């Protein structure tokens, strides 16, 4: 009959379902036998970790939502109710709260992996751009989630960040009113943020599905950044990478548990233990740590509109990264200069993060300006030019014979000419 799948599963129930809806065949193909480069290092765990993390956020979030009150008069005390009276409510909340931090740690490392090994380069541009969409959605979700407990930093953080939109001419003030649902951050703001905070994670699930679908079209990149040449270069995902990812998940859960059980408020802000008070501005309004570099970029510019544009620009520039980086070589291993400069960029971002935690005065302004400048220089000048100037090391012939010429840059055997680049 037309359309029915020929299922290879022996179990009659599975076979019956699979014939009509081949999800088992699909899972088998995409997750079990899926050919995966055999030379992954542990950086390749972080995508799986992010997925686990998202699942944890959704599960804890749903149970929190059962006890949370999205009402300006009740929100703060409902969170205290969760912490004190709901059975294991403190666990749910600390997992959700620190889970947001873990999510960003994991995702930032995941992104760094992409930058270091050139995973954004052709043919994975769209895969990369979907990743940037995921990052933006995560940020929106985390920002609105942070407003929900309705502490001082929730309230003032929301006020500062929503106010940024007012910098845009003409439409700006209208956008702000729309975000607020009124003329200041208030109950309607909390209501809509709660609704969106519940919605966006599921949008994330959808985009992550596309992200992985795109990955399964192009196949994974690998630490050498060269294409898979033959079946010898790959292993079936299961059991090899399910086993390797399991180690990653365990280590991830250890770090997560140490945070949740021994230092649950370490990454938090003391001010958020004070109920929101529209009449009293905290001495310094700082966002959560994962927003600090962007916040520093924002505050490094004296002009509000320009600052806002630079802040959003620092994220949006990642969309065009595949075209800014002109080098055809993916992995930094074979790019002697990029390999150093990527660390300079990392340091610039970390210093920006430190600057973001301080009042924009004195040395902090200077530092954040230098680093902001470097941040954009890296993307807009260095990457386009470097690709043209840099002489890459010779690439190995294939993944299964990587040792040759990889690190030292020695000659390839048989006098083969240094292969300058992968098919670009």
């Amino acid at each position, binding site marked *: 009959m037309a359309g029915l799948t020929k299922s290879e599963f022996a179990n009659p129930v599975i076979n019956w379902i699979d014939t009509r809806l081949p999800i088992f065949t699909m899972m088998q193909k995409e997750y079990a036998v899926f050919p995966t480069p055999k*030379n992954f290092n542990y950086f390749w765990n972080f995508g799986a970790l992010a997925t686990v993390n998202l699942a944890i956020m959704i599960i804890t979030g749903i149970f929190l939502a059962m006890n949370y009150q999205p009402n300006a008069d009740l929100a703060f005390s409902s969170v205290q109710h969760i912490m004190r009276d709901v059975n294991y409510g403190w666990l749910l909340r600390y997992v959700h709260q620190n889970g947001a931090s873990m999510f960003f740690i994991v995702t930032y490392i995941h992104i760094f992996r992409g930058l270091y090994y050139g995973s954004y380069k052709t043919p994975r541009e769209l895969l990369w751009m979907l990743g940037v969409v995921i990052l933006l959605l995560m940020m929106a979700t985390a920002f609105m989630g942070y407003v929900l407990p309705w502490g001082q930093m929730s309230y003032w953080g929301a006020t500062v960040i929503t106010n940024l939109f007012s910098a845009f001419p003409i439409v700006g003030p209208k956008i702000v009113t729309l975000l607020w649902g009124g003329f200041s951050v208030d109950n309607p703001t909390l209501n809509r943020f709660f609704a969106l905070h519940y919605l966006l994670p599921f949008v994330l699930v959808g985009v992550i599905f596309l992200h992985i679908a795109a990955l399964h079209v192009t196949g994974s990149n690998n630490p050498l950044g060269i294409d898979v040449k033959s079946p010898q270069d790959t292993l079936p995902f299961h059991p090899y990478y399910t086993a390797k990812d399991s180690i990653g998940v365990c280590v991830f859960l250890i770090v997560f548990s140490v945070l949740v059980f021994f230092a649950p408020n370490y990454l938090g802000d003391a001010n958020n233990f004070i109920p929101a008070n529209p009449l009293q501005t905290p001495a310094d309004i700082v966002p959560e740590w994962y927003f600090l570099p962007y916040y520093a970029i924002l505050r490094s510019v004296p002009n509000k509109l320009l600052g806002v544009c630079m802040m959003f620009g620092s994220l949006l520039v990642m969309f065009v990264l595949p075209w800014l980086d002109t080098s055809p070589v993916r992995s930094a291993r074979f790019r002697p200069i990029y390999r*150093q400069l990527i660390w300079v960029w990392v340091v610039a971002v970390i210093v920006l993060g430190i600057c973001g935690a301080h009042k924009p005065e004195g040395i902090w302004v200077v530092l954040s300006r230098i680093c902001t400048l470097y941040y954009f220089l890296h993307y807009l000048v260095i990457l386009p030019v470097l690709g043209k100037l840099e002489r890459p090391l010779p690439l190995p012939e294939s993944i299964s014979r990587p040792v040759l010429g990889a690190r030292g840059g020695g000659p390839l055997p048989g006098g083969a000419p240094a292969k300058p680049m992968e098919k670009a």
Partner: protein
Amino acid sequence: MMRPQRSIMARSVPMRSAIVRSLLACVLVTGLFAATAVAQEGEMPNERWSFEHAFGTFDLAAAQRGFQVYSNVCSNCHSMKYLHYRDLSGIGLDEDQIKAIAANVTVPSGTDDQGNPKEGPATPASEFKSPFPNDKAARAANNGALPPDLSLIVNAREGGPNYIYGILTGFGQPPAGFKMQDGMNYNRMFPGHQIAMPPPLQDGTVEYTDGTPNNLNQEAHDVVTFLAWAANPELVERKQIGVRVVLFLMFMTGLTYAVKRKVWSDVDH
């Protein structure tokens, strides 16, 4: 922008580690700046707390004395509205003690048959009674300043227990030339050094029944222990579960590592 140019020529590696190292130094220096830039108002005390560190638990005797300090002194001005009397089992009080404590407090208890609001003794399920019906009344009684709710105060201040201890023990005479506003009190710890709270504790403010010396430092230490418990009542259970979870996960890590080694043993990589 000069470096890349130069290293295009020099393909050697030592250069790289030098750059990375100087960059790390950069980060460290920034960190140091960060540390010194936190100009403290007063010297932050560095007390030893029973509940510090990974395995610390609450000193229950201190927390109970601290509850006594709160009830006798602080509760005249400060509410603790996220606590219920039943929660006091967390500092080791038994059911009868809690019932007796609650029964001594009069709270609104619904309406009588005519629909008039009525009052009655609190029960273990009642919330801690607040000293004032609302913020306005609290301000009116305190020279315009609002005594903050103390349920979360230890978490709500940078420095936590040490800061609160510093406030309670930081009252004194202003240095010569320091201009004080009317009705304010000098406090070394408080930002700006002028606090609307009159010094709540002195040597001998409360009478301890267990023979513990009732000097100012001891009273402050006890009440801060109580407040730390109030802000984090789950702390002991949390750490206990945490130890088990982390041990279990370490075991699982070892196990999955062994499995992975086994699975990969036939791969040449």
